[in-house]
């Protein structure tokens, strides 16, 4: 089967029209588990939901269970800066459903679910999903709600709170069954790999991070929105169509990501290259910060938001995140306390790794990155002035 040309296979979907979908992409193959695993293995597909976990590993873990599994498509997209999942579900629901169907068949799933945000208009996806035998379930949103175990907990009727990771959802999730939770974009990519093969997938993108990805571009750009680009593209090139204005830095990976300064926009969007900035591609969020916007002010607002989104189960997160936010607020407000950066860093180290989910870790990463990349700006604040405020006054 040959793929349609171009790199907009995810975005140029046919909406609700199934017949048109099959005409464009071809019939959906029906591989057995071994063949599907082999294809995913050779494709090197990794999760597109933020964690970037190798999809094959998750599939194998679920296949190893003794009970028939549950397959869950994760469309919850709790990150406020991200819109790719919503766009994908609107433009190309059938490709996502293809991914679910492939897995359900190969793994002999007991149940197949597509989780969507309750506050979004999901009527279109709902009817399309139901027609294809997938249970489309609207769930409560929130930053942490899309976390695997929190999602499973909601499906079980509980609140969107992450569970102790000692028991992985791939071992015991919905109804105590092995549960495979994959981001909707990962499912769509899987559907492409199954049709056109691993070699095709590897033909795009970079060697260590193949395929395409959806990126949500926001912030100081003329044309914000969702684009599709090859993995391993240069950051500057991916941003170009959005026409960024004068940027001081780009936040890669959303509120749990890290900053790439303007001088580093030539970086390739691969795990290896971005590691230098302490971040990975994540869920493809690219937020451009204008030179006239104060990064410390921005970080303080984000830190406040992240603190409020804690599910309040774990002591270090519940207590540590507000402390970081308060200190950042003081720094942003121009409080000339030289101990502030040190105390923020200390708190960021204190919360890392001490919770049931990665919320404190991600928040700590973002805050630490702000202090690192904007070192000069922070120093200015401690001396009593703000470089961005000066820029605004000058323009």
């Amino acid at each position, binding site marked *: 089967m040959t793929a349609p040309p171009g790199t907009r296979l995810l975005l140029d979907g046919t909406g609700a029209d199934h017949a048109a979908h099959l005409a464009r992409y071809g019939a959906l193959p029906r591989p057995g588990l071994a063949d599907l695993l082999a294809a995913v293995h050779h494709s090197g597909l990794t999760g597109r939901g933020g964690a970037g976990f190798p999809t094959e590993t998750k599939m194998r873990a679920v296949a190893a269970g003794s009970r028939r599994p549950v397959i869950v498509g994760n469309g919850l997209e709790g990150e406020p800066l991200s819109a790719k999942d919503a766009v994908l579900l609107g433009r190309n629901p059938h490709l996502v459903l293809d991914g679910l169907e492939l897995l359900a068949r190969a793994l002999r799933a007991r149940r197949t679910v597509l989780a969507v945000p309750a506050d979004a208009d999901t009527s279109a996806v709902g009817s399309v999903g139901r027609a294809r035998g997938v249970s489309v379930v609207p769930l409560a949103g929130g930053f942490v709600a899309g976390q695997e175990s929190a999602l499973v907990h909601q499906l079980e009727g509980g609140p969107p*709170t992450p569970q102790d990771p000692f028991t992985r959802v791939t071992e015991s999730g919905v109804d105590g069954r092995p549960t495979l939770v994959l981001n909707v974009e990962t499912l769509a990519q899987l559907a492409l790999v199954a049709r056109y093969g691993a070699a095709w997938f590897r033909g795009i993108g970079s060697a260590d991070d193949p395929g395409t990805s959806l990126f949500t571009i926001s912030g100081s750009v003329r044309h914000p929105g969702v684009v599709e680009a090859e993995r391993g593209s240069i950051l500057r090139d991916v941003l170009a169509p959005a026409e960024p204005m004068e940027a001081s830095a780009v936040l890669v990976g959303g509120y749990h990501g890290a900053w790439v300064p303007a001088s580093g926009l030539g970086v390739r969007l691969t795990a290896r290259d971005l590691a230098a900035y302490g971040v990975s591609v994540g869920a493809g969020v690219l937020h451009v910060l204008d030179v006239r916007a104060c990064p410390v002010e921005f970080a303080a607002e984000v830190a406040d938001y992240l603190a409020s989104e804690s*599910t*309040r*189960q*774990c*002591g270090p997160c*519940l*207590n540590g995140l*507000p402390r970081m936010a308060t200190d950042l607020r003081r720094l942003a407000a121009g409080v000339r306390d030289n101990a502030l950066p040190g105390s923020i860093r200390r708190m960021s180290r204190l919360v890392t790794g001490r919770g049931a989910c990665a919320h404190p870790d991600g928040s700590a990463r973002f805050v630490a990155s702000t202090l690192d990349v904007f070192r000069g700006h922070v120093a200015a604040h401690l001396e009593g002035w703000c470089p961005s405020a000066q820029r605004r006054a000058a323009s």
Partner: protein
Amino acid sequence: MNGAGLNEALWALGRGTGVVALVMFTVAMVLGIASRSGRPLPGLGRFGVSDLHRTASLTGVGLVAVHLTSLLFDPFAQLRLVDLVLPFLASYRPFWLGLGTLAVDTLAVVAVVSLLRVRVGPRVFRAVHWATYALWPVALTHALGSGTDRGTLWLRAVAAGCVLAVVVAVGWRLTPSYAERGWSRHPRRTA
């Protein structure tokens, strides 16, 4: 020892173990509240408070077992096995004894659930453990009304001491600062 002597011994054992069990459960209540507070006691630390709470509780259970056994064998008490489970059916002072039955039944559930707490999980364990707040006053009332020591000064003094200890502990339990365990922090969302 002749029959009458044996009966008196059993009766004495029954009363003795009953009173000491009451004191044990009082100690267990106070230590339980101290343990939940998360504050250390001098020389014991926090883990020592938990350990002692457990020891006092189990000792109390053991004493109650001896209390029941000796009374079952003592003809004066006229206690039958059914009285251990169903309350208010006894011949001798049915009301006061019935309270004892209720206390024993509750104690059995609390003890079993506590010993199996890893199996039942923290929510069930905590819910059942709340029953101890009902268990203690029922046990105290049973102690005051049953047996031939009722009305004696020494029993009333012991009971008064127990009541004082529990009232102070529960009073502390109800103060707002109790919950933070002595730290300045936000309250967690618990399951």
